[in-house]
């Protein structure tokens, strides 16, 4: 459910959750030891900060931004230049580079956000889109700052080592970024429990009424935009530490789109939703793109289905099921979940076979007519492969439709029962209480 914060900010449950989060951050690189997976973990940390800062606008403030990469990306550029200045003798510790990115984020959010937050709703979205294009175009026009097509590179192994830490090894970089990830997540969570954080929710729900209880809605939006810009800039600075390079792509529309897409996918209505989204973002960009050429197409399909069937994202799916489990009714849903999963996988297999074959015909015919797919060898010149894929897709679709209908009925029953139980409990409470 929405933001309820009358419990102490750091009760036992909260402490346990944050402790667990810290533990995961510490232990993860000890389990995944290859340089490749450690780099992925570092990228997840960066993405978590970026998506959480994006959700400050989208989920908490109802501001749909199409240009959040402006703030992460400019943070990266300024951070990279700062790293180069450090090697030129600027006396700031290299560990503070993400904070330099954060200050850049504040700076640009103060300037650009002033224009952006004058408007809400669709005009707001259009302005962010326009500013995103503007900054991207500028990145190609001003090579002195943006480095043209090659970008600007830097070296993080500069300055005097502090306690033997030089950031020469990937693990040292990972732990620095993990600390920033943890602190930023904690700070952004804390923000949701402050007067400004709550008024941001109020502005999201009803901007007009806010003005009649003494608050200037544009000011609330503007301040939140600047704070989101700070954390976006920190994420940009973390990126600079990890990759030691900034190219025009980091301020591009593709990246802004990815923040939106994966924040939504993870769940914009719940604080931890964007964390899930960020992890999926890195998995999709790094692993899925290795796996198939058509990965963007799959991503588009997943996004489409999420918007249609689970607009609250993965986080809200989790919360709904936790609620069902709390009332001891999850057991009844398991069989239909298995049914949904199996039929869904069948449908996906059929669709994926078709997509892979079409991609092969369009792009890879020089390599011969055969496509290797899930251990099978499909032949794009044989009718059987095409018919087979279509049949699998059709059967999968039919079974999924049946499974979905049964699941929806069962889900409705369970929800009604829970509602009845809740109102009965409530009735007992009020009747049992001394008048």
């Amino acid at each position, binding site marked *: 459910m929405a933001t309820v914060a009358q*419990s102490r900010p750091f009760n036992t449950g909260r402490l346990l959750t944050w402790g667990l989060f810290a533990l995961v951050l510490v232990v993860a690189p000890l389990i995944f030891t290859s340089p490749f997976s450690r780099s992925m973990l570092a990228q997840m940390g960066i993405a978590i900060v970026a998506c959480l800062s994006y959700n400050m606008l989208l989920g908490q403030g109802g501001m749909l931004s199409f240009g959040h990469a402006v703030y992460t990306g400019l943070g990266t550029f300024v951070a990279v230049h700062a790293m180069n200045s450090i090697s030129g003798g600027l006396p700031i510790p290299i560990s503070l580079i993400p904070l330099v990115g954060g200050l850049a984020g504040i700076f640009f959010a103060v300037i650009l956000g002033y224009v952006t937050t004058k408007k809400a709703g669709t005009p707001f979205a259009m302005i962010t889109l326009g500013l995103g294009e503007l900054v991207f175009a500028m990145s190609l026009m001003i090579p002195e700052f943006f480095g043209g097509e090659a970008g600007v590179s830097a070296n993080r192994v500069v300055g005097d080592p502090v306690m033997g830490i030089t950031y020469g090894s990937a693990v040292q970089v990972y732990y620095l970024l993990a600390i920033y990830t943890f602190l930023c997540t904690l700070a952004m969570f804390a923000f949701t429990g402050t007067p400004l954080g709550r008024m941001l929710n109020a502005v999201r729900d009803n901007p007009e009424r806010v003005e009649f209880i003494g608050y200037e809605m544009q000011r609330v939006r503007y301040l939140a935009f600047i704070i989101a810009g700070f954390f976006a800039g920190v994420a940009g600075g973390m990126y600079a530490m990890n990759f030691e390079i900034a190219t025009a792509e980091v301020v591009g529309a593709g990246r802004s789109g990815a923040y939106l897409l994966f924040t939504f996918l993870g769940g914009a209505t719940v604080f931890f939703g964007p964390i899930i989204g960020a992890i999926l973002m890195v998995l999709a960009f790094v692993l899925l793109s290795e796996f198939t050429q058509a990965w963007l197409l799959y991503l588009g399909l997943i996004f489409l289905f999420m918007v249609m069937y689970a607009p609250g994202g993965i986080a809200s799916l989790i919360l709904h099921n936790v609620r069902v489990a709390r009332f001891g009714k999850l057991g009844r849903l398991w069989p239909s979940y298995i049914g949904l999963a199996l039929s869904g996988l069948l449908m996906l297999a059929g669709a994926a076979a078709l997509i892979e074959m079409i991609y092969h015909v369009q792009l890879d015919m020089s390599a011969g007519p055969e496509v290797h797919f899930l251990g099978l060898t499909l032949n794009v010149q044989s009718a059987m492969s095409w018919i087979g894929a279509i049949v699998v897709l059709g059967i999968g679709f039919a079974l999924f439709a049946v499974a979905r209908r049964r699941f929806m009925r069962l889900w409705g029953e369970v929800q009604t029962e829970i509602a009845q139980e809740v109102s009965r409990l409530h009735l007992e409470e009020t009747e049992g209480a001394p008048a």
Partner: protein
Amino acid sequence: MSVTASSSRYAVELKDLRKSFGKTEIIRGANLAVAPGERVAIIGPNGAGKSTLFNLISGRFGPTSGQILLNGERIDDLRPYEISRKGLARSFQVSNLFTRLSVFENLRCAVLWSLGYRYSFLKFLVNTHDANARADELMAMIKLEHKHDTLAMNLTYAEQRALEIGITIAGGANVVLLDEPTAGMSKSETKRFVELIRDVTAGKTLLTVEHDMGVVFGLADKIAVLVYGEVIAFDEPEAVRANPRVQEAYLGSVLADQQAAEAGH
């Protein structure tokens, strides 16, 4: 800015107020002077401009010409939040709540500014004890304690109307404007609600737009009759009832209906 000799004999004063939408003039030179602590009901036929008048006073939009004074100070060029900070609060005809926040959060948001928390993001709401206590107190006043965690969008109609009033009075405004607070309620609900309004607005200057004559006579010290954008009468209920102009323009038919209904008992 010309300050009109701080004539704060009146809590709210309208001077030759006019408002046009396009070529249509909705408010045509309205004059009204409400003394501090007075409870005024604004009545009039549909389309007379009652809601427009409230929107002008509360700053939702600016007048075409004329003046609005709050405690002797001109407010006709101020934004709603500035007017709100000067101690004037209003409710809306259609409930205007923070739908995805709980009842408690709705009320706490509504008290934050008046307690000086402004745009703070370095303070935790769990520690804003005065705001939390005030929100709890308000929740008790509008009798929604048992709905502490219910989202505003999941309340019943009558509960939403109560929360609407709660948000309105939360900031401790001295001048309260209620736009048809009992619209759409059943008879018994209305009766309870009038008592609630009387309790929570005790000692305040009250302006209310109301159609239900029972509510009007139950709540108001004075009645202002608005017809075609002009205040044609402003007096105590009995005098307004007897006023031939009012009889002719509006009240006659309404009162006749009501008296007929009462005689039927």
